[in-house]
């Protein structure tokens, strides 16, 4: 099924916002979305969340006969699948252009960079070698599939353990996981892909485009790099003309991002290793949010606001004293209790009162954090914050 087409209004809005250095989710030009890496109970299974883009990578291995011209080397096979659950535009079994492009780029990034020592995968030269298979499944498409896929693939490869092999003369024994601990793959370096999207013929650049931004971009530059500042692959698509210094600038940004992401992957691997060693719980079940009150909790995110203090002071000075509420229940008669006082139910006025109460709390803080106010009167909770600057489209403007 075809994806809903982007309307002209949305396209114009996005391009105009990018011209004013504004992004839909409030990020800066060079900001990545929050990356979350989690591993499963099996070795080699990895989930990566890049904002709302969700990718799963699974590594498995098999003993096969090697290629004739390379009898000492193991084989690595990559496969990306665009699942129909990721986007209505993807159909199972349909070989789309995007799929071919992603597969090619992942192969160039990981295979041609020789990040995995294939000679260590040899068991019996000319007869038996390990074939490592990396399956990458896209679960949700919200832009920047290549970066997420490369992070998932390399994290899964680092996490994977292959069965130990013993050779005694002519006999080769493959030990199961119960007999002998499986051994990790020998990985030299971790190449990560960083995507740069260009708009208005290369005038504006954004790192980590989300799905909407991808729809209006002119071209894409993908740089695969490792933390030692070695470029593993570089590809420009979309047919835009890039200047030399633009490409150089992108590669500098990429090296910064890659070192951050590599650190993140290493930390995730460390945490997983620690959890397995100490016998703690690990795997996806633990990384999923529980059905608790804090399940909807999100991290404190910085919001751009400049003259919050001034405006809050103005409004607070004009505000009335909030009504005194009784925080603890009052027993009026045996068997009945009362919490709070009845307020007059006037539509619209009720919310103003609560707004002003909340603002008094906030005047001390520079950054706004959503707090539950205990002394608040029962009713719909609302917090008022004052924003600076942008012209908001509302019906009355």
């Amino acid at each position: 099924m075809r994806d809903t087409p982007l309307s002209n209004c949305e396209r114009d809005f996005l391009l105009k916002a990018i011209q004013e250095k504004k992004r839909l989710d409030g990020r800066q030009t060079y900001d990545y979305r929050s990356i979350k890496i989690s591993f499963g109970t099996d070795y080699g299974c990895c989930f990566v969340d890049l904002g709302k883009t969700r990718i799963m990578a699974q590594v498995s291995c098999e003993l096969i006969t090697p290629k004739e011209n390379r009898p000492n080397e193991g084989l690595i096979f990559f496969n990306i699948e665009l699942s129909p659950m990721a986007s209505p535009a993807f159909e199972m079994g349909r070989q789309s252009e995007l799929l071919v492009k992603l597969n090619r780029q992942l192969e160039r990034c990981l295979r041609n960079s020789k990040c995995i020592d294939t000679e260590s995968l040899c068991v019996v030269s000319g007869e038996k070698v390990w074939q490592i298979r990396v399956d990458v499944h896209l679960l949700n498409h919200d832009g920047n599939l290549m970066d997420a896929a490369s992070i998932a693939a390399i994290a899964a490869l680092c996490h994977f353990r292959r069965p130990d092999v013993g050779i005694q003369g002519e006999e080769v024994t493959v030990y199961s996981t119960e007999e002998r601990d499986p051994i990790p793959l020998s990985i030299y370096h971790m190449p990560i892909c960083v995507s740069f999207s260009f708009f208005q013929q290369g005038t504006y650049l954004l790192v980590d485009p989300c799905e909407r931004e991808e729809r209006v971009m002119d071209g894409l530059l993908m740089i695969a790099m490792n933390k030692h500042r070695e470029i593993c692959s570089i590809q420009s698509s979309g047919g835009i003309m890039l200047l030399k210094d633009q490409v150089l600038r992108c590669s500098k940004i990429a090296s910064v991002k890659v070192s951050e992401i590599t650190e993140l992957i290493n930390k995730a691997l460390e945490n997983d290793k620690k959890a397995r060693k100490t016998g703690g719980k690990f795997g996806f079940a633990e990384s999923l949010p529980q059905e608790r009150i804090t399940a909807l909790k999100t991290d404190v995110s910085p919001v751009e606001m400049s003259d919050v203090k001034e405006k809050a002071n103005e409004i607070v000075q004009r505000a009335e004293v909030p009504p005194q509420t009784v925080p603890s229940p009052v027993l009026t008669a045996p068997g009945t209790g009362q919490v709070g006082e009845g307020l007059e139910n006037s539509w619209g006025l009720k919310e103003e009162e609560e707004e002003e109460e909340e603002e008094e709390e906030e005047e001390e803080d520079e950054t706004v954090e959503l707090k539950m106010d205990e002394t608040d009167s029962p009713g719909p909770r609302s917090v008022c914050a004052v924003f600076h600057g942008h012209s908001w489209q509302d019906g009355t403007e």
Partner: protein
Amino acid sequence: GMAANMRLPTIRKQVSLSSSLSALDGKDLVVPGDVITSDTGFMRGHGTYMDEEKLTASVAGEVERVNKLICVRPLKTRFNGEVGDVVVGRITEVQQKRWKVDTNSRLDSVLLLSSVNLPGGELRRRSAEDELTMRDYLQEGDLISAEVQSVFSDGALSLHTRSLKYGKLGQGVLVQLSPSLIKRQKTHFHNLPCGASIILGNNGFVWLYPTPGHQDEEAGGYYTSLEPVSLSDREVISRLRNCLLALGAHKVLLYDTSVLYCYESSLPHQIKDILKPEVMEEIVMMTRQKLVELEG
């Protein structure tokens, strides 16, 4: 700078069916997997399948029985067009001698070059030059109003704009809702007394636009006025749009009367407040009351 409202998530109240109009009494609602009947004497229609001699529903909707034929009409579905339906669609592709239009159906609809009124309104054969200048009339991203002329064997709709009331849409607001909420009426073009006009497309796309003054109609629907729309008109249209979203959220059948009543009920509130859940509930409740009074 302007003040913005933020609120913490709360549990949304269930929209209770009992408070809605009596239209749902006696209707048989099923969900996928529900057994409709074990009687083998019935023929199975759309939305059903045979599961071990039992007739089971495959979509969520109401069961319809016509003599021996049982089918399930889904509550939420893509637009299944029939001949004569008025649709609002967006051009997605310009091909040889035809345009592809997105009308919220399973397949893109087709608008043939021979089915449009050329500017000037004359009836002449489409020349090769017309083919090359197709993009001058309708481009990708343009919105049009059209009527379904016929249905292809694969289910794709063939549209036509061979009347002066159809054609390219100019300045206005598009609201995308479910096709099942649009009531079938004699006419889908209304000039609402509140000061705006509305096209209720059968495919769920509703177009709100400022009521046109007395213009020349010669251009045949391709002349799009770029005159700035006055603030009062824009306010009316914004309010109507928010009312439509409120009605859509509470699954109220949309037709000119219900939209108008909703507009009137929303007047005491500010336009942007209409989007708040509690205000939406209040407005829709008042609209339903007025509609019940109208009937009874």
